[in-house]
């Protein structure tokens, strides 16, 4: 699956990091970094990451 984060909306809350730490992380400055593709086995975690995003900035394709 493909993951798109609208970085104009993202405010680095980090909620996605707690749901899907294999895909999303906060760097030492507290800014979001993420993988643009993820294995199907992570779908549930990535869906939850998109659910809990306070800005609803995460889109999943495929």
């Amino acid at each position: 699956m493909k993951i798109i984060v609208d970085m104009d909306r993202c405010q680095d809350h980090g909620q996605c990091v707690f749901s899907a730490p294999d895909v999303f992380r906060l760097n030492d400055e507290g800014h979001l970094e993420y993988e643009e593709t993820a294995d199907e086995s992570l779908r549930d975690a990535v869906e939850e990451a998109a659910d809990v995003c306070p800005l609803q900035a995460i889109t999943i394709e495929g």
Partner: protein
Amino acid sequence: MRRIVVVGASMGGLRAAEQLRAAGFTGDLTVVGDEPHRPYNRPPLSKEVLAAEVTHEAVAFRMRASVADVDWRLGMPVVSSDLAARTLTLLDGSSLAYDGLVVATGLRARRLPQPGLEDRRHVVRTLDDAVRLRGCLVPGARVVVIGAGFVGCEVAATARTLRADVTVVCAAPEPLMSPLGPDLGAELRRRHEARGVRFLLGRTVTAFGDGGPASADVLLSDGTALGADVIIEAVGSTPCVSWLDGNGLDLSDGVLCDADLRVEGRPDVVAVGDVARFPNPRYDGVCRRVEHWSIPTDTARKAARTLLGVDSPPFAPLPSFWSDQYDLRIQSFGAPALGCDDIRVLEGDPATECAVGYHRDGELVGVVLLGLPGAIPRYRKQLMDAFTAPAPISG
């Protein structure tokens, strides 16, 4: 179980529907909501959305593809229920039968009981509330915010950013006193005051004026009289449970649930979101409602599996929420309110950026960060690791 009805079409109701599908439910799903809108995101209503043009599109929740076939009954409150007969009665008099029921009706804004000036008085709970308020927040408008919890402080910051003349009235000696303690409350007050917000603390509203030109629109307990073009009541919220009356439930503060989110042991009724009063073994066995961002998602995941009889881990969520006031991000993890008797600055300086720990019986139960975004993962992990769920008893 052929048909599940979710009552409540906000975040908790949507997440419950999605989690029922994720847990394998393929039957009919109906979601009933009293507001006319599809589920939307409430936190921005007191913050960035209130400062911009308020539309449903700007705050609508992303929905999982799995709920595309949900039957939405919007703008239609449930007025009563018969849990023994498994039927609900809607406002239009129609009835709805279910095999499984999810209670997700959430909260409504509490209102002050004093009459008067109804056309100037606002709350900020729903999208329609925010649309109505947005048009009134113009430069120079005299805005009186009653209540200094998170909603009151966020709205005060937003109104001030829109160059309104803002006064905050609250009964406590500092804003945000009960969630954060007096020291952080005072620090946040100073930040608001530096932006030009005025605080009238330790006072309550006794009456509203008659709207005449005498400029005594809001009367306070110490005799102060304030002129007000806009009055925002931010005095907490009340669980929406009257539709469950008559079923013998404990509705004294939301809906009483067991550790699996069943409503008082009933196999066919669960509750999610901030209407659910449940025990969290992470802290103790006391049942509490939790009005935090993370709770609708966490309770929906557990409650869906409970209702369907699918095994899931013991429920011990770590609550979290945030608040944005001007350029300051406040983030909370755990249960700071349980540790307000022993508050310690863990790092940094409250005047700039800091991490504050809340302790009960010497144990860290919550962390609040002012700024310090790089510290989030570390403190959250420390709180997560502080509790290990007991292994289920086998046999």
